[in-house]
């Protein structure tokens, strides 16, 4: 679904943001892109969305070469949720905001109305409310809702939970999970390892524009070398289970840890 082959990209007047990067994400996967600040995560997201074009190598998204395809064309298949929802919101009511992306895709009025009403119901928004009167978390959910309404095949999320409280964070992530369960491919940039553990199945770790680890999120969190190199800290439960050692290798959630402790006590 998403394929990067030996991609290089550098910003004007600075070093390489992405260097010789290759990976592939298959249809229906939920992957997280991890790494310290300046590792090149957002650049990778922009490369996939066609917002920046690779200096060398190729980026293929849903069979389309991003170098030869306009971002507006890719937008028919790719949804991109930015960290700051205010950059996306540009209409005067929630209803208009939800309809905007659908109008750009050239859907007919009946289909637009049907999808807008469904999204309003699913997300519990008041369609007549002004988007800028919503709270930060609600605006983030509105930006997400307007993308989900367009039913993208691929969803890219650039730090979707930054600045949100736990409740809003979970509401945003549950909506993304629902989209993924309906078949969409999700690539999420996230600094919250608990969220990554809860939702992503695969993790790709970047450091200085290069891919240093790729695999199941749980396995990556247990790789001290990759985590340290990317200045990341595994979720607390994983850290605890790593300290506990043998018998706790599979314990990455509270439930799994409790189960492992019970097993150990029984064995003793």
């Amino acid at each position: 679904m998403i394929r990067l082959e030996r991609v290089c990209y550098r910003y004007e007047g600075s070093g390489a943001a992405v260097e010789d990067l290759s990976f592939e994400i298959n249809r229906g996967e939920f992957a997280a892109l991890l790494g310290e600040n300046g590792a090149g995560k957002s650049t990778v997201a922009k490369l996939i969305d066609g917002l920046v074009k690779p200096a060398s190598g190729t980026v293929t998204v849903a069979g389309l070469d991003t170098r030869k395809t306009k971002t507006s064309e890719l937008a028919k298949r790719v949804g991109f949720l930015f960290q700051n929802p205010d950059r996306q919101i540009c209409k005067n009511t929630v209803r208009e905001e939800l309809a905007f992306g659908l109008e750009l895709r050239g859907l007919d009025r009946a289909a637009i109305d049907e999808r807008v009403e469904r999204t309003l119901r699913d997300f519990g928004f008041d369609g007549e409310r002004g988007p800028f009167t919503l709270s930060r978390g609600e605006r983030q959910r509105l930006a997400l809702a307007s993308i989900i309404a367009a039913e993208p095949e691929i969803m890219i999320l650039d730090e979707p939970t930054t600045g949100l409280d736990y409740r809003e964070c979970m509401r945003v992530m549950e909506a993304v999970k629902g989209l993924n369960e309906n078949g969409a491919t999700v690539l999420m940039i996230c600094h919250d390892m608990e969220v990554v553990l809860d939702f992503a199945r695969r993790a790709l770790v970047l450091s200085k524009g290069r891919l240093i680890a790729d695999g199941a999120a749980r396995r990556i969190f247990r790789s001290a070398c990759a985590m340290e190199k990317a200045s990341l800290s595994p979720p607390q439960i994983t850290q605890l289970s790593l300290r506990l050692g043998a018998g706790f290798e599979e314990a990455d959630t509270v439930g799994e840890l409790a189960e492992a402790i019970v097993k150990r006590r029984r064995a003793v």
Partner: protein
Amino acid sequence: MKGLLEYTEGNTFIHRMNPLVKLLLALCVCAAAFASDSLAFLAALLAIDLALGAAGGVFGKALRLLAGLLKAGLLLFVLQLLFFREGRPLFLFVTDEGALTAAKLALRFIAACMPLALMLGLTRTGDLTNALVKTAHVPYKYAFTLSAAIRFIPLFMSEMEGVMEAQASRGVDFDGGPLKKIRLALPLCVPLLMISVRKIDGSAVAAEARGFNLRGRASGYKDYPLGTADLPAAALCAALVALGIIT
């Protein structure tokens, strides 16, 4: 135009000049451009702008600035040609006086805008504010307003770029002629305005929290004495204005 108004690090004599003298020089070039009616003098001012850019180690930036301003200058030139009717007809609706006036107007616009932009690129905003307060005795509130306005220009440009990226990723196609771009960019003023208002509000609260109102003229620790290059620069200012009035 991105990055053209941002400060460029350096240690040239222009970087070391007194910020107020740099501001005065920029304003004098500007005044000379408006005072002069000579095409040759306006062209000379443009050459001086480029020379100042080269002396400040930002010749490439000055050329990019010139290229950006040339586009706006060209628009002014065409508009002037369209509406100026006096003089001997050259071809179609274009008259000799119209062409000369249009060329002067375009050159005047470019020659007047360039020094101010170059001054901003070669002077730290903080130094300009402090010098205005300490040496020119401008109340800090007003000097800060000026520096805040200057600081926000690149921020707004970067936000606008972000807003355009976000809209492009939603399917807005910005490719096309200038009219299409303007039509598509107009609704983007809403998010830009909201982001700007929030940012300015945040900055104002942060400044208050850090004791903005307590700052006085003596608060700045840096002094801005006149250096060796400042006196010749001041003389150049006077000469340019005088030549502008004469020509």
